[in-house]
């Protein structure tokens, strides 16, 4: 396995309005990137509950609320917030360079899987 970190350039900063999310499909997976106070936080867009598009959810601080059934996830850890049973989505490291947002797909983390391992 390659240890070299690959940063995929995704889009210009202005394409993600403040406090909103936008989806991008990378390697067949839909990733939602949110602009929270000019920090760009990326998570897996598919809600583990019924597959709702988290990219379309309302952001509340650094959490997002799924538009279908109101499940809430922390954008920094991917963990479900105030959930009756533990759930999580993957998170991806991002960085900004020259006005372009980059996502590191190899850096994907799933907090729950790590805890189980």
């Amino acid at each position, binding site marked *: 396995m390659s240890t070299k970190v690959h940063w*995929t350039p995704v889009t210009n900063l202005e394409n993600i309005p403040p406090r909103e999310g936008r989806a991008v499909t990378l390697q067949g997976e839909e990733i939602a990137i949110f602009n929270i106070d000019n920090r760009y936080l990326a998570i897996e867009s598919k809600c583990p509950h019924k597959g709702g598009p988290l990219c379309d959810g309302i952001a509340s601080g650094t959490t997002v609320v799924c538009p279908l059934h109101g499940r809430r996830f922390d954008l920094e850890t991917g963990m479900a917030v105030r959930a009756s049973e533990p759930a999580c989505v993957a998170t991806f490291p991002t960085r900004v360079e020259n006005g372009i947002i980059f996502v590191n797909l190899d850096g994907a983390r799933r907090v729950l899987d790590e805890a189980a391992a």
Partner: protein
Amino acid sequence: MKQRLVVVGNGMAGVSCVEQILKQPHDFDITIFGDETHVNYNRILLSLVLAGEKSADEIVLNDLDWYESNQICTRLGVKITGIDRERKVVLGEDGGITEYDKLILATGSSAFIPPIPGVEKRNVHVFRTLDDTRALLEKSRPGLKTVVIGGGLLGLEAARGLQVRGCEVTVVHLMDTLMERQLDATGGAYLKRKIENLGIRVMLPQQTAALYGNGRVDGLRFASGEELEADLVVIAAGIRPNAELGRKAGLDVRRGIVVDDFMQTSDPHIFAVGECTEHRGQTFGLVAPLFEQGRVLAGAITGHPGPSFAGASPATKLKIMGVEIFSAGSIDDTEPGVETVRYEDPSLGVYKKLLLKDNRLHGVILVGDIEDEHVYQDWLRGGTDLTPHRRQILFPPRDPDPGLEVAAMPDSETICGCNGVRKSDIVQAIHKHGIVTLQELKEKTRASTSCGTCTGLCEKLLRAVTPDFQEETKTTLCSCLPFSYEQLRDMIRGQQLKSAEEVLNVYGNRKGCEVCKPALSYLLDMLWCGAHEEDRSARFINDRVHANIQKDGTFSVVPRMRGGVTTPDELRRIADVADKYKVPMVKVTGSQRIDLLGIKKADLPKVWADLGMPSGQAYTKGVRMVKTCVGTEFCRFGVQDSTSAGIELERRLENLFTPHKFKMGVVGCPRNCAEATVKDLGLVGQDGSWQVVVGGAAGKSVRKADLLTTVETTEQAMEASNLFFQYYRENANYLERSYDFVERLGIEKIRKETVYASEKDKRKLLDRLDRSKAMAKDAWLEGAHPVNPTQFVQIQPLEVPTA
């Protein structure tokens, strides 16, 4: 012979004293001199005039009719320049000489202008009178660099008013804490943060050394050597009693005109009230003690002396830029033997600090939550031993007997400081007018109509006095913004907040959530009639892309089909769209429309363009549709043209937002084929008339709509519909359907405030509806003109990663 009473000063203190005199049996011919040319107005509300929330007319306390009907000789615009105490006359600037038997000086105070070089320059103003306010209104404009010198109450109010006008405002204060006489450093910091969140810059401590500029002010130079550009400077550095007249006449004057406990000056024929006075070494700047002085003097001067004036309570209760502040007793915590107990909640903006000495309350500062101020006032006044209360001292348990607190208050206690309404005034008004709601109390007594700090107390009084008290149901929005809808509406209007983010930053936890953000978006749109700052991040996805999200993340598209009437051409286009986009399901809805289900977000703009029809708003809390029957056009039973009426009704209300979805129906006869009696609003045609029915439901529960009114013409039916529609928009809680709203308020109240309201009030409702309608547009126009480049399209990566 009647005695001649002359009052010099036509402000709040003088006129309120005259009002009190008129309530007593008396034998006076009254003359009032005022150097301003205006009738008596509520000076406290000048900041609202500056902010554009009230007009100059709306803050008038006594109009000319009042002076006339009370046979008061009014001399406005006449300055009194001297008193000849031997001849008992006052001398006017106009050369007039007026004799008096008794003289009341109520000359008020003036803005204190510190001796800073350059204060005489143009565009340097004070903020004290209606004329000052008008001058500021004339100068203010968006982007104007404005500096307010003084971080006390008046300065902060001026700052907010000017900022609402669009000026770029900086407050410069000499001390290192705002309102340092009322607040400590932490309390001041809380206030400062709130103010900065509103977009006003605050510079502390900053001593202004000079105002520079050539004739006109260009900026300020501070003692530190720094400079600050300014096109407009407002000086609000405190007030000085207008005691000159008394001084020249040889009365005992120190800082103010010295008065005894019955407001008598050193001359037994001359009295003084208000901000020009000095009583036991104290001068006055807030309004509550002035009303008290007026009452004491009215009793004494008419020969019915009551209690004497005991001085102002050392407590200050204020609302500044929407932040409630209470301060009482000594706030100096460096005093030996003083302990402090504190509580802070930074995200709610609540700060409480109690100073204790020998287990007794010594002073208190409350910011953001002043609910318990009465308990603290009692403890302060009574010197209560707090040993048994120490554990609950910051959250004193609410009394199990809700009437006790108001029962313990003396009748003379001022409840509403802004309008000088006492407990006894309120109790009398409740009995006299049979008042059962807070709204009625506000209308009859003016209590709780200015700053609103006394609302809680007024409610407690109502509850204690009237057995039929009807509490207005208050639903708190959510924990991000723990206020009732009524409070939120007041806050948004009062503080002129235009965006959801602004409301959350000032009053909430600065984050918001999926509950409060859409609710705020609705309130802002409704309150500003569409002239708010729309923030799509605060809207549910349906209102970002103007379509209804489905369980698989695709969307449904329902074009508007007014009155359920369509054409072959429209049907062909719908069929073509269904083919072209391989729409998985085409469904006729219960609302006489056609639903295209399973459309991808990225296809929405193209689908709308191909349909060439406006949005049916089937995805939002807004006007859905008007369902109609064929009426007189084709039906052999129809007695009214329900189809045309329905189409017209839909045209008039479409594209507007409502607290919850809003469905309508129009039927041409009582057979009710289009089910108008289970709609939010329905028109039921009868021979020669329309019944307008509201609050029907055929959802989770079934409810037959209530009859609002019966009218003869279709135009009258439209007006009644519009009145109810706007009334619901303005008074329902977000997500409250019309049937819950009608049940909560009662149809009688709704009738009274819509179809039976005065023509003037009806006009106001309809005007606001017209203004909103003028701003409302077909949301699907955004298909061609998106609000941002990625509103509908998915982001395409700049580089496709390889696995």
